[in-house]
Each structure stands twice: as structure tokens, then as C-alpha cells.
């Protein structure tokens, strides 16, 4: 191997670029196969042109911000509620026995099943959509917090008992930090789910600004280039948030001795 190539190939950044570039190349290849393929696989050059256009007009940014806002509020509200419920279920057998069955059953009901009832209770505005996003973030955080709390080693709980921690202290010094790795995994899930739920609900019921709406309109117009840009934008922005949380996680879990 050439000497200059080796460090390049080792760089994390470049390694990470291999697959995306390969995907783009493959995409381009497919798009050149014919009319039919270029219907869904729009040529890269065309996409790029539309991207510049969307950026210049500010459309992309505007819709992106709207989606971000919904997703962020959903993640925050749903996530906090999830941590609370999951922590409660994990820490108390009684709560687990009481809430658990209902939660696990309801959790499996697809959101579409709830739509008539949600519409019935909360009408047709922005709130039901926020609720859907909240639920998307809620489930993984309940599950992961629960699991995190349950997997805290008995010996640490015993230390808490010896030091006579009150409920709050137990929560703050033992349960939360002990469950933190798992909670952070839950946040990672919740991040993606709430993001997906935001876009998905916009796609299905959008009437206002948002990437999903933009995509929906573009789909109606058969502007597959815009659809692809939206998909890529959704992915990339989601990835950006993922990186942010990953960084936060690394800081919060600095006490861990892992690989």
C-alpha cells in the first residue's frame, strides 16, 4: 500500500465517508439505467441543482426549523415523561405490576389505531401531532430507563441502604447515574423515533410547515428530486443531532471504563 494512502484510510472521517460515497455512486449508476429508474433515483446533478434552489429560496430552512421544533419539543416532553415512568416502574415493583401491563399493551397499538380517539379527544390541530411525537420518544425512554434501573447491581443499592439515602438521594446518586448508560441509549432511540414520527406525521397529516409537508407536496408534484433532498436532509440533520447527543453521552459517561 502506498505510504500516503495508509493514514488516509485510517482516518475515521474518511472511513466514514466510504459507504455514503459508494451509495451515491450506486445511486447515480441506477439513475442512468433508464426512465423508470430515474423516476425514483433522480440523477445526482439534478438533485444538487434543486438543493441549491431550495437553499437559496429559504424553503428548506424554514421547513427544517418547523420540523426541528416539533421533534425537539416532543423529545423533551415525551422523553422526560418516559424517564419518569420508566424510573418509577424500575424502582418500584408495585408500580411495575400496576402500570406495566397496560403500558406494554398500549405500547404495541400502532399510532394509527389511536388516531380516531386522539382526534376525538384533542381535535385536529397541532397538539395531536405533538402527542404522536411525544409518544414516539416516550416508549424507548420508558423501556430503557426501566431496564437501566433494573440492572443496577444489588451491591450499589445496598450501599445506598447503609448510607440511609432518602428516596430522592437514592434516585439522584444511585438510580439515575446507574441507569444512565441505558437511558442514553433510550435517548438515542427516542431521538430517531421522535424525528421519524415528526416527519412521518407531517407526511401523513401535514397542513403546515415541516419537512414532511414539503416532501408530501413534492411527492404530489412528482418532484422526486425534492423528495430525495428531504430524505437526505432528514437523515443528515438527524445524524447531526445524534452526534450532539453522542458527545453529551460521552461526557456524562466519562466514569465508565469501557473499550
Amino acid at each position, binding site marked *: 500500500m502506498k505510504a500516503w494512502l495508509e493514514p488516509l484510510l485510517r482516518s475515521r472521517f474518511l472511513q466514514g465517508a466510504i459507504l455514503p460515497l459508494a451509495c451515491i455512486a450506486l445511486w447515480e449508476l441506477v439513475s442512468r439505467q433508464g*426512465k*423508470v429508474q430515474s*423516476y*425514483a433515483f433522480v440523477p445526482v446533478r439534478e438533485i444538487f441543482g434543486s438543493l441549491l434552489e431550495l437553499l437559496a429560496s429559504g*424553503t428548506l430552512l*424554514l*421547513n427544517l426549523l*418547523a420540523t426541528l421544533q416539533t421533534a425537539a419539543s416532543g423529545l423533551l416532553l415525551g422523553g422526560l415523561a418516559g424517564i419518569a415512568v420508566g424510573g418509577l416502574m424500575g424502582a418500584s415493583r408495585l408500580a411495575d405490576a400496576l402500570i406495566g401491563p397496560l403500558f406494554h399493551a398500549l405500547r404495541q397499538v400502532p399510532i394509527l389505531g389511536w*388516531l*380516531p380517539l386522539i*382526534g*376525538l379527544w384533542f*381535535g*385536529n390541530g397541532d397538539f395531536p401531532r405533538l402527542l404522536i411525537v411525544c409518544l414516539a420518544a416516550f416508549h424507548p425512554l420508558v423501556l430503557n430507563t426501566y431496564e437501566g434501573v433494573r440492572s443496577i447491581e444489588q451491591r450499589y443499592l445496598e450501599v445506598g441502604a447503609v448510607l440511609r439515602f432518602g428516596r430522592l438521594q437514592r434516585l439522584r446518586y444511585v438510580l439515575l447515574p446507574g441507569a444512565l448508560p441505558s437511558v442514553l441509549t433510550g435517548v438515542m432511540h427516542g431521538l430517531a423515533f421522535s424525528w421519524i414520527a415528526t416527519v412521518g406525521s*407531517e407526511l*401523513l*397529516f*401535514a*397542513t*403546515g*410547515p*415541516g419537512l414532511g*409537508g*414539503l416532501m*408530501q*407536496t*413534492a*411527492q*404530489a*408534484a*412528482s*418532484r422526486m428530486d425534492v423528495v430525495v433532498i428531504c430524505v437526505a436532509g432528514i437523515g443528515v440533520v438527524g445524524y447531526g443531532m445524534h452526534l450532539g447527543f453522542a458527545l453529551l453521552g460521552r461526557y456524562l459517561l466519562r466514569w465508565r471504563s469501557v473499550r
Partner: protein
Amino acid sequence: AGERVEVVRIATVAYPNEGRTAYNGAAAVIAGRGWLEKDLQKLGIRLEWVPVPVQSVGASVNEAFANRSIDFAAYGDLPSVILNSNGVETRLIVPGGKGNNVYLVVPEGSAATSIRDLKGKRIALHRGRPWEFSFTRLLEANGLKLSDFKIANLNPQAGAAALAAGNVDAFVALSDAFLLADRGLGRIIWSTKLPDQGWKMRAELWGAKDFVERHPEIAQVVANAYVRAAHWISRDENAAEFIRLSAASGHPESTLRQEYADDSVGWKARWEPAFDAALADHYRHVAGYALDARLIRKAPDTDRLFDARFVRAALKELQLESYWGAPPAAPRAGR
């Protein structure tokens, strides 16, 4: 008269557009010009548009009517029949004109030229949506049934992809059909534009029966606005502007223009809010179809769903009685 009304809620199909909510059809004009808002304001009533996403208009509006969270709604034919057959009563206040076209598209290379050629083939059709009815009337006219085909239940986006990929032999579409045709991916072999086949997909203004009965004066104001909008749109000089407004739905103006061009129904006549025999016939058919397809358990008497008095009054008030020609022989109006 009844208790005091503070707000009138009208559900209408809406699209996200440039970061704002855009309405379609008459609502776009009414909302854009602020007509209804002003008129209601004079009565001390607030107007609230309730946007419903295009993907689930029927179900959302029906639920909203049942829940009394809206007073009026502009939406399709089949859902209102379903709603009424389930005991939630609504009234057709202002007919929506002659309606939108439904198209049958086949892949570019297909040899099929009529629906009969497609017998036994695979057709993409989104079940339960308003255009299903138009399509079944086509089948009926040709002595065919849905069960003569392999129906692939696909939403319009998936249907377009499936047609492009050659996974289906035909695709029942709205004006998106032109997008496929323009790209050379599909060919339109039939549409409701054809002269002898007036089975366009309808959408009209409906009002909750309770509300209309208790507050006819408010219903009148609303009807006035819709008739006025129909009149405004139907004038040739406003056609371009209307198409521009409608393009907010994402459908490019070119497809919209194609949708309206070459139709057996002229532009002006297309928007006539007429309670004519064709309308009554249409709804009878819808109810019959719904019953046959077991979408409902008992068919409502559709003629009783029409409340023509508001349109009549509106035409008079707006002095449009002769605009669309002589008032047609009205069907038995409700009550």
C-alpha cells in the same frame, strides 16, 4: 335561532405550502379574499378554518362532525354518505360544481386501450378514497366488477412508483396522471373528461344538520361565500389566478391546466352549484355502491341530504340567478 354562536368552524382540505397552510378550491378563494370572515364579523362571529390533511379527509371530517368539533366541511361524496348512514346527520348546502376528473393510466408500453383490455390484470387503486367510486362506475358501464381485476391497494405515491416500475398494469389516479404521462412513464387511456361519462369525483359543502337547522342565517352567510367563490372562479378571467392558487397543493400549474382542458364540461359550467338531477343521481349511486360494497349497513335516503334553499337564496342575493342559465328543475329539496 338558538344559543349565541361565537365561532363558525369549517373543515377544508389544506396543504402545507411555503411554510404556510394553503386551502384548496373555493376555500382558497374565500380565505384569500377574506369574504366570509368579514361577513361573519358583522354578526360578531369568528371564522375558524379547520385544515384537514389531504390523505385522510373523509375519516377526519367524519370524526370531526361526529364529535361536533366542526360545523361545515367541504369534502367528498362517499364519506358523507357513510357518515349519514351511521346516524350523524349532515346536509349538503352548496354543491361543488361538476367535480374533479379521475384517470386511468397504463404503463407507456402497454397495449391496453380500454378498461376491457385490462380484465384480470393488476390495477393500483387506493381503496376507500373518493375516486374509487368514479372508477367503479366505469366498471359498471362496461359490465365489469372490481373482482374482475387484481386490485393492488396503493396510495397515489406508491401507485405511481408501482406503475413506473411496471408492477401494475394500470393505475387509477387524479391529475397526477399527467405527471406520469409527461415523463413518458404512463399513458392515459380513460378519464371522466369523456363526454358521455360524467362521473367526476365530487366534493361539496356540507353542514351539520343541527347547526344548519338552528342557525339558518349563519348557514346562509357561509353559503353566500361559497356561491360567490364559485362565481368568481367560473369567470374566465379568473381561471389563471385560480389555477395559480390551486398549485399550492404541489400539483404543478401545467397539470392543473391539463386537468381542466379538453373537458366535456366547460369552465363556467364546471363551477355551477347546481342541485340538478345529475347530483341526485350521483348520490343515489354512491349510496347504492356503498351498500353493495358493504361499506354501510343501510343506505340513507340521499335526496333528503340536500338542502337547496341556501343556494337559491344566495343566487338571488348575489343576483346570479341567471348567470349559469335558468335555474334547473330542482330536485325535492330537504324538507
